[in-house]
C-alpha cells in the first residue's frame, strides 16, 4: 500500500461516494458545530422543505457571536446590542429545539466560543471530520481531525444529510524545525507561518503542521496554530495526535470511556502521515530563530518580529494598509500608542492564554487611557480562571473581566473599537474595520497584548520595566 498522509487517511475513511470527473465526493461528517450567525438561513431551508436534521446527535449548537459579554442577572434579558442580535439568538433556540439538537445556551455551564467548547467537551476527536459555518473550524485540526469552515448552504446540506459534496483538496506540510525560544508562543509561530506563506499561500490546501516546535506545544497552543490556517487561505490545518492529545481528551464528557476508549486510542495512534507520504507542497521553517510577532497591516500575513521595522510596500495595497494603520515603512511598531487591548477569541481565549496575560499583568496596572477587555473563550475557561484567581489579577490591573463570547474578534455584539483607535488583539483578523468601522488592529500573542495594555503603547514584553510593577 502506498504511504498516506494524515489528511488522506481521514479523507479516505469518510468518502461515502468517491469523486468522479462530473461530481465531487460525498463526504461524511462526524461532527457538525452550529452557531447563531450562519445557521438561521440553513434551518429555514429544512423547514421550507419539511426536512429533519438527519443526525441530531452529531450536531452541537452554541451561541457566541451575537451574544453580549456583559453581566446580567438570572431571569433578565441579556443586554443584546440590538433587537436583531436578540432575534438571531432566539431563532437558534427555536430551531435547535424544533430539530432536537443540543444547544449549549444561556443556562449551560458549557456555553462558549464554538471552537473552544468542542475540544473542552471531548466532542472533537482525532480522525473525525468536523465542519461548522465558520472559517476558524480548522482549530479542531489540532486533534488530528479534518475540520473546515463551510457556507450556510452547505450547513443546510449537512443538517439534512450529514454529508457534504467536496473535491479533495491539495495537501501541504509545514514543518517547524527545532525548538522555538521560550518567549515565542504558538501565536507567534502561526503569525510567522502566515507571513511566510502569504494570505493566499494555502489556498486549495489542507496544511499538516509538523516538526519539533509543533510537537512541543500543548494542545491549546496547537489549537492556536491550526485556528489561523484560514488566514493563509488554507481549508484546514491538522496536527497528528500523540500522547498529549490522548491525555487531553481522556475523561472528557463526550470522549469514549472504558473499553471504547482503549479501542479509540489504538485507532488514533495510526493517524499520522506515513514515512514517504507525498504532499503537493512542503515548507520548512527554522523555529529556533523565531521571535515574538506583531502585524503591521490589514491582512494577517503582515506579521513582523517585535524588533523589526515595517517593511517597504510591495504593492499599492501595502501602501494603503500602512496609511490606514498609521505606520511608516522603515520604522518599528514599538511606541505606537494603543487605545484598546483585547484578550480572547477562538485563537487565544483559552486558560493558557489567560495565564500568559495574567503573568504580565500581575502586580501591574493597565495604562490609564487604555481599555482592556479579557473575554474567556467559554464558561469553563472562565470558571477555571476564577478558580485560580486570574480574574483578581485582571481586575486589580484595571482590565474588564467579561462573560464568554467572540466579542471584539468580530465586533458584532457591541464590543468594538472606535474609528481611528489602535487595538492590540489576540484574535485572528486585522482586516480594515474588523473590530469596528475605522478601528485599527494589531494581532499579537496574549503576553504581547498584556504588555501593550500596561505600557499604553506597543512594547516588547521582555523590556517591560520592573518599575512598572506597583
Amino acid at each position, binding site marked *: 500500500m502506498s504511504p498516506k498522509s494524515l489528511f488522506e487517511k481521514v479523507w479516505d475513511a469518510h468518502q*461515502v*461516494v468517491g469523486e468522479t*470527473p*462530473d*461530481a*465531487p465526493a*460525498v463526504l*461524511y461528517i462526524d461532527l457538525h458545530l452550529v452557531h447563531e*450567525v*450562519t445557521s*438561521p*438561513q440553513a434551518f*429555514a*431551508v429544512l423547514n421550507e422543505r419539511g426536512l429533519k436534521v*438527519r443526525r441530531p446527535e452529531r450536531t452541537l449548537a452554541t451561541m457566541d*457571536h*451575537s451574544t453580549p459579554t456583559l453581566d446580567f442577572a438570572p431571569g433578565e434579558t441579556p443586554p443584546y446590542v440590538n433587537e*436583531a*442580535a436578540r*432575534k*438571531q439568538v432566539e431563532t437558534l433556540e427555536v430551531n435547535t429545539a424544533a430539530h432536537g439538537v443540543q444547544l449549549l445556551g444561556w443556562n449551560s455551564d458549557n456555553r462558549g466560543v464554538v471552537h473552544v467548547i468542542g475540544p473542552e467537551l471531548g466532542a472533537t476527536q482525532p480522525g473525525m471530520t468536523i465542519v461548522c*459555518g*465558520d*472559517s476558524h473550524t480548522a482549530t479542531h485540526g489540532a486533534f488530528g481531525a479534518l475540520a473546515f*469552515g*463551510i*457556507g*450556510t*448552504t452547505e450547513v*443546510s*446540506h449537512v443538517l*439534512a*444529510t*450529514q*454529508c457534504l*459534496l467536496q*473535491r479533495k483538496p491539495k495537501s501541504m506540510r509545514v514543518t517547524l524545525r527545532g525548538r522555538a525560544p521560550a518567549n515565542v508562543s504558538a501565536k507567534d509561530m502561526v503569525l510567522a507561518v502566515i507571513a511566510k506563506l502569504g*494570505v*493566499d499561500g494555502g*489556498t*486549495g490546501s489542507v496544511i499538516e503542521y509538523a516538526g519539533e516546535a509543533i510537537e512541543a506545544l500543548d494542545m491549546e497552543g496547537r489549537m492556536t496554530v491550526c485556528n489561523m490556517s*484560514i488566514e493563509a*487561505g488554507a*481549508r484546514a490545518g491538522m496536527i497528528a495526535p500523540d500522547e498529549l492529545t490522548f491525555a487531553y481528551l481522556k475523561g472528557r464528557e463526550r470522549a469514549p470511556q472504558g473499553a471504547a476508549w482503549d479501542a479509540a486510542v489504538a485507532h488514533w495512534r495510526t493517524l499520522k502521515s506515513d514515512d514517504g507520504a507525498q504532499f503537493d507542497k512542503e515548507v520548512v521553517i527554522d523555529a529556533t530563530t523565531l521571535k515574538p510577532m506583531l502585524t503591521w497591516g490589514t*491582512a494577517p500575513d503582515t506579521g513582523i518580529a517585535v524588533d523589526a521595522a515595517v517593511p517597504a510596500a510591495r*504593492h*499599492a*495595497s501595502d501602501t494603503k494598509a500602512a496609511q490606514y494603520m498609521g505606520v511608516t515603512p522603515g520604522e518599528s511598531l514599538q511606541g505606537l500608542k494603543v487605545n484598546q487591548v483585547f484578550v480572547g477569541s477562538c485563537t487565544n481565549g483559552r486558560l493558557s492564554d489567560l495565564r500568559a496575560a495574567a503573568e504580565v499583568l500581575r502586580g501591574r496596572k493597565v495604562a490609564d487611557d487604555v481599555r482592556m477587555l479579557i473575554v474567556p473563550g467559554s464558561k469553563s475557561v472562565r470558571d477555571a480562571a476564577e478558580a485560580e484567581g486570574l480574574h483578581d489579577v485582571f481586575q486589580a490591573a484595571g482590565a474588564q473581566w467579561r462573560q464568554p463570547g467572540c466579542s471584539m474578534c*468580530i*465586533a*458584532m455584539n457591541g464590543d*468594538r473599537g472606535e*474609528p481611528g483607535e489602535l487595538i492590540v488583539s489576540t484574535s485572528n*483578523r486585522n*482586516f*480594515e*474595520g*474588523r473590530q469596528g*468601522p*475605522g478601528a485599527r488592529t494589531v494581532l499579537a500573542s496574549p503576553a504581547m497584548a498584556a504588555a501593550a495594555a500596561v505600557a499604553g503603547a506597543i512594547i516588547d514584553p521582555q523590556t517591560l520595566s520592573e518599575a512598572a510593577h506597583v
Partner: protein
Amino acid sequence: MSETATGFKSLSSRTYVMAQENIDTDQIIPARFLTTTSRQGLGAVVFHDWRYESAGAVKEDEPLNSLDVTAHRILVAGRNFGCGSSREHAPWALADFGFQAVISSEIADIFRSNAAKNGILPIVAPKAAHDWLLAHDDVEVTIDLDAQRVDLGNGPSFEFDIEPFAKHCLMEGVDPLGFLMARMDDIAQFEAARS
C-alpha cells in the same frame, strides 16, 4: 444578457474594477450586519464601510454609490478576492446588489464555493487577462459558461476552469441538496457499515 429561468448560460455586461488585493469578506459585508436571519436585502449593506462614513453619510467619492449595476454585472477584483470569513452573506450581498460574476487572478476557496451556489460565477483569469482587465475599467465583456470562455473584445480573451458540478448546477439550475438527498441509501449504508 441571456440568463434563463433555469440557470446561468452566458452573460454580456460591462466590468466594474476594484483593483485592491485581498478584498476580504469583512469588506464585502461588515460583521455587524450579520445579525440577520434572512438572506434577502443585503445589497443595501454590500461594501458598506467603503460607501458610507462611520456616522452614516454617503461617501460621494465612492464610485460604487453611483454605479449602474444593471449595466455592470461583472466585478473585476484584485488578487485573492473573498478571503477571510466563510459568511455566505458575502455572495448574498453581492448578488442582491446586482453582480453576477467576479473575475480575479485568485479567489478564496470558501467564497468561491459560496458564490457559485448563489448565482455568482467566480472566474479565475490568467495573469495577463487579469492585468488587462484591471487596467481597462468599464469594458464590455462576454462570458460563455458552457464554453468556459471570456471574450474581452480588444483584450486577451481567455478560457477558464470551473468545477464541473458547480458548472452543471449553475447552468441547469440543479439543486445540490437534491443531488445529496438522492444518495441517501449510500449514506445509510455507510453509517451502517461503520457502526
